[in-house]
């Protein structure tokens, strides 16, 4: 019998395979992961795009916000999967195996990165078809992908922590936070077009610096210290707090 931490990568690999099957084999998983993000892009560019006045093409303005919305929404789906694993006792079984501790959570996170990056490809493709012309050079694209991975990892650990404490139904509602919070940011309309009382919130919530950083990366303009540092601080903060919370919640056992 192998010792407790003999092969963490093998353990995580087995868990990733499990999550990939979970996504690809459920209609719900496929729709959530692939159909909804593309639909959101189409709605904003084709339906709202004609009405919203903006300097230049609205498609150029709205793509970064839409991408972040899709990544957040896709990451939140992990909360449902983790809550299901808790409900069926699968997490208990994994905890009684001589494997690398929270392999199942690392598997969820790694699978979420793969799922969301894959889901972003058709979204970007649709945006290009609709006339989006990103000006990013190679470094900009590398920065974009690295930044996207950081966003997915931070949001997915948050979803893991939520899934460990919430019921399956409550975990499903985490989606809505990621679906609606980006609207009250600079992602879809500039903050200065919002009512004055909303601007304080919109300027200071995490989605605004996160979306503005992605906007700079994709448009080939140098990232501004005023957006990238708050964005990285928010993401690092969410990541560290969520990772610690999920690790502790995984080990201790709450009476639901």
């Amino acid at each position, binding site marked *: 019998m192998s010792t407790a931490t003999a092969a963490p990568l093998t353990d995580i690999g087995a868990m990733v395979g499990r999550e990939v099957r979970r996504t690809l084999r459920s209609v719900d998983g496929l729709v959530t992961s692939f159909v909804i993000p593309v639909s959101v892009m189409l709605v904003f560019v084709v339906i709202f795009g004609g009405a919203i006045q903006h300097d230049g093409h609205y498609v150029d303005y709205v793509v970064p916000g839409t991408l972040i919305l899709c990544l957040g929404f896709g990451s939140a789906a992990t909360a449902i999967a983790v809550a299901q694993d808790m409900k*069926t006792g*699968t997490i*208990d079984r994994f*905890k009684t*195996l001589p494997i690398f501790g929270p392999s199942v959570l690392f598997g969820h996170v790694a699978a979420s990165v793969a799922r969301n990056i894959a889901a972003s490809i058709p979204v970007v493709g649709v945006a290009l078809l609709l006339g989006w012309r990103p000006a990013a050079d190679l470094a900009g694209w590398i920065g974009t992908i690295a930044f996207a991975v950081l966003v997915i990892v931070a949001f997915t650990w948050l979803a893991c922590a939520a899934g460990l404490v919430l019921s399956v139904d409550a975990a499903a509602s985490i989606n809505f936070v990621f679906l609606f919070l980006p609207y009250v940011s600079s992602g879809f309309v500039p903050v200065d077009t919002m009512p004055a009382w909303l601007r304080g919130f919109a300027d200071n919530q995490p989605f605004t610096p996160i979306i503005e950083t992605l906007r700079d990366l994709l448009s080939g303009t140098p990232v501004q210290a005023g957006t990238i540092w708050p964005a990285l601080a928010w993401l690092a903060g969410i990541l560290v707090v969520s990772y610690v919370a999920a690790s502790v919640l995984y080990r201790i*056992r709450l009476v639901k």
Partner: protein
Amino acid sequence: MNKTTPMIAASGLTKSYNANHVLRGIDLAVGRGEIFALLGPNGAGKTTTVNILTTLVMPDAGTATISGIDIVREPGRVRGVISLTGQYASVDEFQTGEENLSMMATLAHLGGKAGRARTAELLEQFDLVDAARRRVETYSGGMRRRLDLAISLIAKPPVVFLDEPTTGLDPRSRAQMWAVVRELASEGTTILLTTQYLEEADQLADTIAVIDGGSVIAHGTAAELKRGVSGDHIELTLGDLASFDAAISLGIQGSRSDAETRSIRVPTCEPVTTIRELLAVADRDGLDVANIAILRPTLDDVFMTLTGHQATQPTEDRNSSTAEGLAA
């Protein structure tokens, strides 16, 4: 069976959640190859005991060892010798039976070839070969439980915990499950199972611990527990009310008499002698005897006597043997 070094040993386990004292000091000892049943109603503390012994929950006080390994100090090593099959079938619906098994083979670090061989072996053993490539969402409840148990055996653990393995199963699937558990024990696997079914404990377990309110209130083989409760009874049923009244007035000592069913229950240590005596009295006084039966105590009686309340299951048919023939 090596009685000197129990495979599962627990001493004084306690656990409270806030003011709720779930366990009030549990002591257990299970020998190698033994089937040990924790029998008790819902909320008695069965699952909490299993959760502590399988390293999922830390006890507030007390000690426990599995195969001599301390569950608190070395939970990682304990996980190497146990498996847990929980109350719900913890199998992935979106994977096939074969995929569920081979995933667990990977997690058990069996290696590709050994993992495939073990997967095939378990599919065969648990009668799941035909369903191996179908997704578990198409499986019946009995098939899921079989797969669940197969998964927990992938690394051939010497100690197996089964938390209510047959709850919700139809009688046929339950019988299949029992056969598998017996086979495992005969191969030397130590099994601790929890159940609220008296019949299950009676049928399967070498040793039974009756647990209620977080304490073990009785402990022994099924036969020992039944002996401890009360001896056998003879139930004499009279053919008409006049005979019933006559029998009562003759002073036939009943522990319980019921005019409605015209039956009298007589406690006895010597059933055959008592039957002879009763029938002799009946013949002498011309009483109309409709039936005479030996009632042996069931685990139901044990449970009732010990806890003052019924188990959750409806009473099984009494283990009675009618002795009408003797009257002739």
